[in-house]
């Protein structure tokens, strides 16, 4: 009898992941358990490390773009926007107004698609399967719109340094308008499914609580930080593209628990619809590529075939990269769906960045998982992983 009791008290170490559906990718957590309580949680990352920073330092500013698509692969559009903005700030150019509006539209579409993917998988982890099926329907709609816009659905590479690749068609604008008219009703639909659901409330309310000061200290960002009541949104603090020309609110939570982070993301989707609506209504006429940066942006194909000067620009840009840079450094961050996606460039004046650093929100959020999970139950670990919204492609880079 005595030995049996001794055995029951023994701590158990279990390995969660890297191949586990509720760890959202190849995240591995080693959990030391006392009964069902987590005593220690040790995350192991790096299974998806592809050396994006090293590859970026060895390719020109123009050719590193496809690498960005593969960071946070469920919101590739915002990664590209972050990259283009960082290069533009480094070289001191601005995208034309129409391109800025288009970028704002596609960024917000990406935010919606990322949040509904998050909602579906998070609810699936906690045990509400229906939401997953509904949310994928709307995600498909957005991906179809992306396909209409640029021909690609996931790895889009649509924004360009100094603008966007091609102008939007009237057909796209009409379909997107229809989407913005119908989507708010769909958000209501999701909320009817889970907002009053007793199981959902018990699994999320008061779980994974982090105070505002502590969340800032841990470097959390995006909805994960705003769930704790901090109004830090880069779209408001450092407005980029057309965010200073549109009107929107920044939803914040109060308690900093899983439920508040869920509410923040739901409200953010409504705000995204508002932003898209305003952008579509205000969309100015004009070019979509910066005309004043011929040594930085690729010339039009028909010009390359007919004009000597353009052909030389094209050749130099492809082989050596933009050669107009000065030595300097810039840290540029945007509000990606997951949080603050920062890019830090050190330039030595050549066509390749001397140092390219990617500050990904998921990396920081995974590092805070032990803080959220230790002392909680194993089931809460799953809720926490879902609520900080991580994508491992971005975490491991």
């Amino acid at each position, binding site marked *: 009898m005595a030995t049996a009791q001794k055995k029951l008290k023994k701590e158990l170490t279990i390995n969660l992941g890297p191949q586990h559906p509720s760890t959202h990718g190849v995240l591995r957590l080693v959990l030391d358990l006392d009964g069902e309580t987590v005593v220690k949680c040790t995350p192991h*990352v*790096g299974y998806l*490390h592809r*050396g994006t*920073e*090293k*590859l970026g330092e*060895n390719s020109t500013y123009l050719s590193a773009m496809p690498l960005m698509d593969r960071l946070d692969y469920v919101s590739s559009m915002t990664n590209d926007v972050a990259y283009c903005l960082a290069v533009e*700030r*480094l070289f*001191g150019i601005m995208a034309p107004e129409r391109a800025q509006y288009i970028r704002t539209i596609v960024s917000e579409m990406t935010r919606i698609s990322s949040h509904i993917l998050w909602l579906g998988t998070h609810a699936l982890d906690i045990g509400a399967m229906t939401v997953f099926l509904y949310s994928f329907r709307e995600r498909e709609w957005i991906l179809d719109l992306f396909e209409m816009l640029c021909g690609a659905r996931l790895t889009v590479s649509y924004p360009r340094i100094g603008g966007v690749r091609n102008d939007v068609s009237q057909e796209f604008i009409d379909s997107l308008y229809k989407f913005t008219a119908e989507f708010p009703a769909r958000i209501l639909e999701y909320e009817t499914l889970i907002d009053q659901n007793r199981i959902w409330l018990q699994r999320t309310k008061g779980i994974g609580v982090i105070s505002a*000061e*502590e969340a*800032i*200290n*841990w*470097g*959390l960002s995006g909805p994960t930080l705003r769930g704790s009541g*901090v109004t*830090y949104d880069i779209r408001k*603090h450092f407005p980029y593209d057309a965010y200073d020309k549109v009107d929107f609110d920044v939803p914040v939570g109060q308690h900093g628990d899983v439920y508040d982070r869920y509410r923040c993301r739901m409200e953010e989707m409504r705000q995204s619809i508002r932003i898209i609506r305003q952008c579509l209504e205000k969309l100015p006429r004009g070019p979509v590529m910066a005309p004043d940066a011929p040594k930085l942006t690729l010339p039009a194909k028909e010009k390359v075939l007919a004009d000597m000067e353009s052909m030389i620009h094209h050749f130099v840009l492809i082989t050596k990269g933009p050669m107009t840079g000065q030595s*300097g*450094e*810039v*840290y540029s*961050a945007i509000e990606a769906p997951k949080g*603050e996606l*920062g890019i*830090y460039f*050190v330039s*030595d004046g050549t066509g390749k960045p*001397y*140092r390219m*650093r990617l*500050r990904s929100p998921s*990396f*920081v959020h*995974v*590092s*805070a998982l032990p*803080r959220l999970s230790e002392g909680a139950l194993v089931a809460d670990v799953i809720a926490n992983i879902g609520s900080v919204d991580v994508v491992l492609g971005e975490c*491991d*880079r």
Partner: protein
Amino acid sequence: MEPKEIAERIKESFPADVREIAFFAGQTSVTVGKDSIKDILRFLHDTPELYFDYLADLCGVDYLGKKEPRFEVVYNLYSIRHRHFIRIRAEVPAEDCSIESAVDIWAGANWHERECFDLFGITFKGHPDMRRILMPEDWEGHPLRKDYPLKSDLGSMEWRGYTELLKTVEKNSQYEVR
């Protein structure tokens, strides 16, 4: 507060440590020596008018053959309360490749410092858990150093498709027009 004023404040308080103040693309960076980096960061975090509560980013840079000292650890700091931004660059020489850890000022520095150790080989003194993070535990070398090759010579372990391609290129080179 304007970034320029913040830089002046740092220079006032730590005159012996500030090496350079640079302005580029609307951002200010202060280059400092590594000896009192912890005091400088603590000063930036604790002074009420500065109050840099948010460590946006921490990373290493390798300036091999470009300048001395070889390494830099870069802190991008932001104050959510006051809405101002500054960059601190701490110089780290290759002979003594270590710097004080900032984990007890910002908890979020933990993994950034581990990553910096993993990819650059800069050790952080006082860090609670100095292990590799992205690369496997038994990995040799620090991949983001400039003298670390982008691609290694794998010899017989090279992917077959690639060696076949190389053979084709060699075979075709005899037809090249010179």
